[in-house]
């Protein structure tokens, strides 16, 4: 079966900067995929290639088997972009009505507005909305055509708790209804809550493509911190499964998936460990250890 969206050895260069360095990715019907990575990793560039907003400098992008700029592909997609705007003088309802007309079999206007949790603001002009409400308006514009596939670039950015809950709930419901959904985020927690597949992208390269469970098993889960009797150096930790090692004089902080093994080795190496603390690692901080490799 033709994948909904496909990148084949896709490269993208902006002047001197190579934003994507050969990405291979195929997303099938009904998948709910998170593109995860720090800012500037290449998430938005990937989405732009998938949607034909940018042309790859090398490789290929296909959308429903077509060139992504093809109207036949576009009319099956709803999109929410980070860097985009809309006129401020039309109301939420007017804008949703307008975007509905672009699709062959759209949702009722009220349903689309409700999916974004914007019922109370349906009569408000877009220019009067707060940042989070505006973001929800873009979500309503993305879903109003009842498209088969949704591309959401940082959908929850700038939203308050309530807005986030409304939008994440709608994404789940849409996925359960069989829609193919690709979204970007730089929060592992959000990807983990929502997606069944996480594509981790860093510096223009896919560094992991797996289930949330597998991704989490790869990142260090525990934080170890302690003081030492005598100053130690990085060399003390050679060969041990540690990450994000910080050694400052007597103070040591590190992340690890195997704290018992690390501590046993340190005792054997004669390090005097004092004030030992082993805690669960902060998920986001630990995730960064995966992406910011030397």
């Amino acid at each position, binding site marked *: 079966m033709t994948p909904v969206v496909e990148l084949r050895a896709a490269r993208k260069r902006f002047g001197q900067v190579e934003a994507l360095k050969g990405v291979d990715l195929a997303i099938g019907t009904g998948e709910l995929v998170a593109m995860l990575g720090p800012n500037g990793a290449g998430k938005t560039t990937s989405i732009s290639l998938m*949607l*034909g*907003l*940018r*042309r790859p400098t090398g490789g290929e992008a296909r959308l429903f088997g077509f060139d992504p700029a093809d*109207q*036949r592909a*576009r*009319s099956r*997609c709803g*999109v929410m*972009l980070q*860097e*985009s*705007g*809309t*006129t401020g*003088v*039309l109301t939420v309802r*007017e*804008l949703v*009505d*307008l*975007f509905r*007309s*672009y*699709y*062959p079999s759209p949702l009722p206007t009220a349903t689309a507005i409700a999916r974004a949790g914007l019922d109370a603001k349906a009569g408000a002009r877009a220019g009067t909305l707060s940042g989070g409400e505006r973001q929800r308006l*873009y979500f309503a*514009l993305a879903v109003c*055509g009842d498209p088969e596939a949704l591309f959401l670039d940082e959908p929850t950015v700038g939203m308050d708790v309530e807005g986030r809950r409304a939008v994440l709930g709608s994404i789940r419901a849409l996925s359960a209804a069989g829609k193919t959904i690709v979204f970007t985020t730089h929060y592992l927690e959000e990807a983990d809550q929502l997606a069944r597949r996480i594509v981790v992208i860093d510096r223009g390269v896919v560094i992991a493509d797996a289930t949330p469970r597998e991704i989490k098993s790869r990142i260090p889960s525990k934080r170890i911190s302690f003081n030492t009797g005598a100053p130690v150096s990085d060399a003390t930790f050679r060969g041990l499964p540690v990450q994000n090692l910080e050694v400052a004089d007597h103070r040591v902080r590190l992340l690890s998936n195997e704290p018992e093994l690390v501590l046993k080795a340190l005792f054997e190496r004669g390090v005097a460990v004092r004030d030992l603390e082993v805690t669960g690692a902060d998920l986001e901080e630990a995730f960064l250890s995966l992406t910011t490799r030397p």
Partner: protein
Amino acid sequence: MRYPAAALMLRMLLMQTRSELLMRWRVPAFSVTNLALPIVFFTFFGLPVAHVRRGDGVSIGAYLLASFGAYAVGNVMIYGFGIGVANERAMKIDRLMRASPLPPLVFMLAKVVTALVFALLALLLLVGYGAVVGGIYQPPAIWAMVIARLLAGSLPFIALGFAIGYLSGPHAAPAVANLIYLPLAFASGFFVPVGQLPGFVQAIAPFLPTYHYAQLAWSALGAGSETLGTSLLWLAGYTALFLTLAVRAYRREERAKFA
């Protein structure tokens, strides 16, 4: 099939045009400038001399209504497209539109239809104002011809508006539009008849697009100074020039933003 079904396209065009009309109406910078400004100018320049007859027997009132009609339509096209497109680029509306299933051609067509509706409205207001306040009358068939010619002949200014919109930023666009359009309008005798302008301006007037555009309206009243064919030839030439400019500016933007 390259595009969605014809019915869907028509629906898109209707909805897009409706939205464009609402937007233009709700932004005073457009609606007031488009509809009220020509009437205000006509009040100062046209009303005091409305009932003086020209050598050819046409009342100066009717002659200046036609001139201000030309000014009004040029206004709608050059400011509407120039400033409108520059603003939309700055607000990144083009990016969301680009990713939507709306074909770019429908997007542009809706803008053109909207501009024509506003131009028609501006012309009807002017003619009505001239009749009610100035007592300036012409047979309806004559006004109908003036209006039809001004709308049909506005193509070069639509192209010029698009070119300005793609070449200038949102802050520069109003200044650029003014700097281009106001001198053109003055030098072509829109406000003061060409015969009363400084000598060097009289000398360049016959080379300006706005001059030949106004001739379309003047000659409908029997007050033109060149044949319809001459006017159309000049306007066709300027359309080709401005369209080339607009397409180049559009392509440059495409390469920068969507390549």
